[in-house]
């Protein structure tokens, strides 16, 4: 396969990671916590979508909507139950709480949903472009024929729609502007009469909605199992930190960098070592934290 094909895969991976990373980074910026249980929100979203699509059954776009609403409800309920009561204890206790909650949720999902992977039934159209000439440099083919499926297009299109919607929300609506104000300086925002708890709740709901969407998209691309979200949480986190924790625009950029690096490193690594591609993402993450800990667009995270 040519590098062009890998780049398309990378773009798709980057798209669903980007949607999740926006939710993750909004929680980081406004609630000031690294939510390690966020992967489980994705899994829950995917399962809700799956149940809606198979048990009810409703058409896929409706199932996606159900998953988004369900994700939002799950997120606000969990936040009210676990995170809001300890809001003022600082980042480390909240991180630890989210790790404990993540373990519990993951195993509860496994208990209910079983260990086997499930799949979304989707009809896929594949568009092939075989006429593209090869452009080889050494063993690596830079162009080459490629294909793109309707699923790929749906994922990329959904991501683009989310970016526009988030941009509109953050710049055009009162809630979004209040969110940005709170991300900047919570005390100042309160002085200006912003109901910080209300904004925090809306961020939790928004992050849950995004997790529901990303979970279903991820599930369409791969499958649904109890580990669906958890296996992506480190990539989501890498994308968010790479872009500068707290910045949604940075998270989008970071997600596509991670997605492309994952896909392209698969092309360059020997076939017995493709498992290393996730390690490559973490190497980038550590590199960013060492060289420019504030990420592409963000604030200082070093203390001394």
């Amino acid at each position, binding site marked *: 396969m040519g590098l062009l094909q890998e780049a398309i895969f990378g773009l798709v991976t980057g798209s669903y990671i980007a949607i999740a990373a926006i939710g993750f980074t909004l929680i980081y910026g406004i609630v000031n*916590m*690294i939510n390690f249980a966020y992967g489980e929100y994705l899994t829950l979203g995917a399962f809700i979508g799956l149940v809606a699509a198979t048990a009810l059954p409703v058409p896929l776009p409706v199932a996606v909507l159900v998953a988004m609403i369900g994700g939002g409800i799950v997120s606000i309920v969990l936040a009210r139950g*676990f995170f809001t*009561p*300890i809001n003022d*204890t600082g*980042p*480390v*206790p909240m*991180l*630890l*709480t989210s*790790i*404990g*909650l*993540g*373990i*519990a*949720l*993951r*195993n*509860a999902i*496994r*208990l209910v949903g079983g*260990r086997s992977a499930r799949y979304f039934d989707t009809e896929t159209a594949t568009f092939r472009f075989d006429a593209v000439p090869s452009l080889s440099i050494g063993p690596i083919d830079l162009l080459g024929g490629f294909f793109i499926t309707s699923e790929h297009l749906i994922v990329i299109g959904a991501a683009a729609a989310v970016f526009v919607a988030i941009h509109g929300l953050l710049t055009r609506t009162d809630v979004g502007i209040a969110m940005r104000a709170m991300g900047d300086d919570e005390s100042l925002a309160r002085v200006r009469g912003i109901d910080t708890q209300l904004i925090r709740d809306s961020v939790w709901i928004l992050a849950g909605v995004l997790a529901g969407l990303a979970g279903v998209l991820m599930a369409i691309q791969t499958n649904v199992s109890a580990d669906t979200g958890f296996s992506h949480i*480190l990539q989501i*986190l*890498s994308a968010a*930190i790479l872009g500068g924790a707290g910045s949604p625009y940075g998270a989008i950029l970071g997600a596509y960098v991670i997605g492309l690096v994952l896909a392209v490193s698969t092309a360059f690594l020997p076939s*017995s*070592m493709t*498992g*290393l591609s*996730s*390690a490559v993402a*973490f*190497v980038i*993450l*550590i590199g960013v*934290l*060492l060289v420019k*800990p504030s990420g592409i667009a963000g604030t200082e*995270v*070093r*203390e*001394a």
Partner: protein
Amino acid sequence: MSALDKLPAGHGDRALLAGVVCLLVGALFAFTPMRAQLPSFLYVFVEVGILFVVYGLLVLGLDLQYGHAGLVNFGHVVFFAVGGYATAMLSAQDSFSGIALGYPWPIGLAVGVLAAAVLGLGLSATSIRLRGDFLAIVTLATAEIFHSVFVNFQGIFGGNVGILGVPRPIAALVADGDTRLVATLFVLGGVTLVTLAAVTRLTEAPYGRVLRAIRADELVTRSLGKSTITYKTQAFVYGAALAGLAGGLFALYNGAVAPGFFTIQVTVTIWIGMLLGGAANHRAVLAGLAIIMGLRLVSRFALDVTPVSGDVFASIRLIVVGMILVAVIRYRPAGIWGNAQELGVDR
């Protein structure tokens, strides 16, 4: 004056005495024809007990890092793994996968400790200045990187099979299975108790006071003329070296290393044990770890009397463990035996 009054008074000295006694008893089993008979229901206790004393070394190191210096190391398993793999690679003989160099095991153990300490030094040199939650992410990512390296470089680390044929010094001395388990428990338990004595000595000294001052307020400590970065680096490296020792001992007890022994689950177990017992109190973190690992025993016995499958039970146990972590942080942030005032978490 009875013999009891002659016992040393401090926790550290008592632990040292108990540790030396344990080592001597272990040596008695290993070098003399003395034999132990285990009733069959005790097997599982001894096995979990051995794992507990190995993890005990991990939790003591982590307590030095987090409990005393406030360093949020969420990749502690990586030092455990590196110590185990270094020991295994140097001392294993004719393993069919991975590298087996066949040196005597004491050299392997020493290199294991050294390798973990060097990794700790490298990691702290680059990331010790990061804020707490970001240090957690970097250490976690490091652990994941090493895990996938161990799995993927089959020619060096043996892939998922790992490295077999690691010498088992105690098994070489004692042929009888029951005696071997008991001797292992006493020897490794002795090592852990001696370590407990050493870290208690270290943290009761003025040195430990500086570490706790850093956790309480780094800026104030720096303004008193203490080089906080140096202290934090030292605490981090000590913890890493202890984990390396644990890894080496584990490899020499187990006779093999594989990625499956060194998962994120190990980190989570010792973290929950530490927080449940009460960080910054060495005996409390060991007690907390004992509670968490005791849950394994409970679930193993409960498994025999209930009709559900092992998978279901494992899931239920992990749900309970996760909820314990959540509950401890929310309702008892200092842990069961921790000092809330000293940890700065009383509200």
